[in-house]
């Protein structure tokens, strides 16, 4: 909404001019950044990087970091791997639900950092439906009583040799604004890659959710619907990051802080629990 208000202001301002400027800004110095999201039954991938002065877009990895992860008091063995050109610390055993996880990272010349989180429950989703020639994806979400936080995403998929649909590409869609108050999606034809929604509007209820996709559904294609349960720390990190990205370049709002549960550093070490539904378009 503020984005659209901002555009109206710019329309009133008739013309805008931008130029690169240099304002010396204070910098606290490099800190350890921990980025690791824990998915049950999957190994744990952790990126350890350095923070950089404001405006940076490249962040050096700390290859010699000491990474100690505990699962309910049990130490996990971590190995460093190079995946897709990026370095990760990867656990040798999968993450188990119902355990608390903690991490301590040390690096020469940098403050040691700590973080901890648990794993959320898995969302209950069922009865997916997508019709060829249409641009809707429907499914049922059964929310359990209590506070839950969800992330929704949609992928185009392909069947692998085992017959499972694997995600290939993210798809854009939009929700009924009653879930996210995003009234302006309708007029701006704004489609999203992911949506973060708390359950406060459907707590404990079974709800039919309709996603309007940007592209028309084609017969024979596969879709993969992902609904992810998030812990509070993960939710807070993702939501504050979403708001920061959405408000980038918007003078109408003060810049918000992105939540971090990494004491002494930055980043997120949080739990999530994704559920998937395979949808064959007929």
């Amino acid at each position, binding site marked *: 909404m503020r984005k659209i208000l901002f555009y109206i202001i710019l*329309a009133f301002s008739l013309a805008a001019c931008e130029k690169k400027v240099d*304002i010396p800004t204070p910098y606290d110095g490099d800190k350890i950044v921990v980025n690791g999201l824990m998915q049950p039954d*999957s190994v744990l991938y952790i990126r350890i990087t350095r923070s950089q002065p404001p405006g940076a877009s490249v962040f050096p990895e700390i290859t010699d970091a000491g990474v100690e992860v505990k699962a309910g008091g049990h130490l996990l063995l971590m190995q460093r791997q190079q995946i897709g050109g990026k370095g990760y610390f990867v656990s040798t055993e999968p993450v188990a639900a119902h355990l608390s996880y903690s991490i301590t990272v040390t690096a020469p010349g940098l403050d040691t950092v700590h973080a901890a989180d648990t794993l959320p429950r898995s969302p209950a989703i069922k009865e997916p439906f997508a019709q060829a*020639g249409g641009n809707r994806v429907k499914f049922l979400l059964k929310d359990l009583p209590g506070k839950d936080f969800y992330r929704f995403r949609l992928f185009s998929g392909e069947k692998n040799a085992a017959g499972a649909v694997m995600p290939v590409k*993210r798809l854009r869609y939009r929700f009924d604004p009653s879930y996210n108050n995003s*009234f302006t999606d309708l007029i701006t034809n704004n489609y999203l890659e992911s949506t973060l929604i708390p359950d406060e509007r459907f707590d404990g209820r079974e709800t*039919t959710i309709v996603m309007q996709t940007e592209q028309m559904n084609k017969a024979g294609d596969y879709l993969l619907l992902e609904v992810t349960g998030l812990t509070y720390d993960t939710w807070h990190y993702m939501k504050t990051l979403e708001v920061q990205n959405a408000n980038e*370049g918007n003078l109408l709002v*003060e810049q918000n802080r992105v939540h971090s549960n990494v004491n002494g550093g930055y980043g997120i070490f949080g739990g999530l629990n994704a559920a998937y539904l395979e949808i064959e378009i007929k």
Partner: protein
Amino acid sequence: MSLARKLLLGLVIACIPIQVFAWNWRTKISLSLKDQPLSVACEWMEKEYGIHFSYSRDVVTMTRRVNIRVKDVPLRRVLDQLFTENGIQYKRIGDQLVLTVKHSASRTISGFVEDAVTGEKLIGATVYAPGLHTGTTSNQYGFYSLTTAKDTSSLSVSYIGYKPVNIPLKDGESRRVNIKLSPANTLQEVEVTDNFPKLQEQTQMSKVNLAVSQTKTMPRMLGEADVLRTIQAMPGVSGGMEGSSGIHVRGGSPDQNLILLDGTPVYNSTHAFGIFSVFNPDMVKNVELYKGAFPARYGGRLSSVVDISMKDGDMHEYHGEVSLGLLASKIMVEGPIAKGKTSFIVTGRRTYADLLAQDVAKNQLNLGKEGEFWLYFFDANAKINHIFSQKDRLYLSAYGGRDHLSVKRDHEFDTMNGEAKRYHEQMRFRLGWGNQAYSLRWNHIFSPRLFSNTTLNYSQFNFNTDYQYNYLALDTPRVRESDNMNGRYFSKVQNAGGKIDFDYRPNPNHAVRFGLQATYNIFQPGILRFNNISDNQQLTDTSYNDETSGGLELAVYFEDDWRIGDSVHLNLGVHASSFLVPGRSYLSVQPRLGFRYLLPRRWALKLSNTMMTQYLHLLTNSATYMPTDLWVAATDKVPPMFANQVAAGLAKTSQSGTYEISVEGYYKTMLNVIEYNELADNFQSATRSWEDNVIVGRGWSYGGEFFLQKKKGDFRGWVGYTLAWSQRAFPNVNQGRVFPYKYDRRHDVELVLTQRLGKRWELSAQWQYSSGAPLSLPVGSYEETGESSPHMPPGLEPGGEVDVAGNRNMLRMQDVHRLDVGATHVKERKNVRYTLNISLYNVYNQQNPFFYYYKRNNETRERELTMLSILPILPSVSYSIRF
């Protein structure tokens, strides 16, 4: 003594008691007369009770008509009732009551000061007794009351822009004198400025009276003259963002301004996100800005009072005015409903950019043939003024204005993103906000020294947005898809109230005002409603935060402008208020003190100390004042705001009234100012837990202001300089340390010049400079994540960084300066006035910072700190015809 003489004396002595005991002061009188001369009352008492009256018809006016109805009332009380109020005194001599004229050392001249041509009441006109060096000014309704020596032979009445007049006073009695002033032959239609009376003759400080004519001759932005933009050019007032007409007074926030339109508060004073004010200058008669030293009659906001009076309408002739500008057109009509008794004035204004851009928008937004696109603001004012009698007048005024965006699509599509697909989409989206303000005011003159005004008013501000979306796939029966959804979000704040104000002038040494007010506030801070039927299945039909709450504010006040001696004046006042909400109440007693001492060379030293309390908070997490911000009542956790301001200054108007100079210093402390920390994400609603997102802190503002103005002659203008600090401290912001507030500007210079060229042209120029505004920028960046596994498909949008928000406002934007110029040409032919204004905004195309952010360079893929500037050089023209 002879026997005969002794007998005669004895007879006389014997007779006297008989006469004396015929009546006495306790004699019970019964008398009933309706609209009869005094002489009839005397004749009746003489006939019925044997009371003889003696008087000279040349000296005592016995023709005055009276109404009396008494039964068995003591004689003295009846005589008091008959004679005292008519300036007649009585004395018993023997068996007679001798009537003479009551001798008094003073008398009271009162009445209204008005425009001789239109009958418009003039606010702040000076009524002066030259021989005695005493005077007064007309109040907000044009009423004046001057109690002066009985032998005062004339009054001098003056008002800037009008020819001064000398009113001879024939006799020595109190009387009502309505004074008509003729406009001077200037380019201005009505000119109202401050400093009459001279600055050294006012105890009031930290006050600015705005020349509405000055507003019209100043350089304009997009052809629109703007009252609030002119106020920004005064020391102590800053405008916030570039191009905004919002006002920030002495380090205060916009919600701390009490903006009154004919006595009714207006919540949101700007159109188009602060670019234009809601006050159509064609309708404005007078503007008073109080930056401090608040009179006791005002309360409820911390930082300023802007008291705007609307014109009353011409009592004698019909007039109209049509204006065409680059952005908006305006119309005004005024005239008598009953000549000399009832007048009206109506104005309207609307922008028309959307009318010009309708077709382009329909194509660009793919709205279809039946589609619509509207983006405009409008406002309208109306006022009726009726004179019932010499003592009673009624004013009914109304304001309504709205900013509006609406988009409607009604289109049948054959493709969707290049794929063949037939569907029909209907969509309507509306977004708007606006104020309404109404007031009914009754002026009553109880006596020449006691004036009253009773007001009933209502005001509201609301923000509303809604959508309606209907979708139907047309490739049926192959595809069955339909949506029918609608949603609405709105917030509203309303108040309705009544107040009665008295203006009492017992003698030249005291000007007393007192009154009481009651205002009921209703808050609806963000209500959401949704309905969604998809494929004939009801998915949603609900509302959220459908809560309404109220609060009653009661206030009483008293103030006395007291002339202790020729050189010493004191303004003593107190404003006491309470705020009642279910389950709790607050009480506040706010002293208001002002002091003036006349120094050698007629410089006035002025001091003031005023306290203010504000029971309403504005929940805002925006960098500026937005229509989506929410008004809420104070609570135990978020208590009322409180401010204490001390000011000291020197002021003087030159003997001729040409120059005015003032220097002031101030120090203001604020308690319970708030920060709202809700994430700035779509719409916010002040749910029951809004207090959890508020942090309460303290604020300080201090600084100095210098103002030099030339007010007469062909060349006029002013220079203002402000040196100021504005700070805040909150427990969780910047580690609890004091930091610069977002409206903190260290230096601010305003230079406004106007030059008349002949009878038709007036040139104007405005140059302003201010230090850079506080700025918050990230103090670091780091890599983001959103995946639990690197094997998931990457996002469609590039991204990857998180910015670390640093301490608030620890940096500064670059300094801001700008020159605007304008030229106004006025031609009159056959009672029709043609006015042309040509303006050039930002003459030397200065690129002032609007805001800063990190932007990715598409070539290098690196992020660069980027400054965005808006409002380059902007020419504009407006043309008006008044008839």
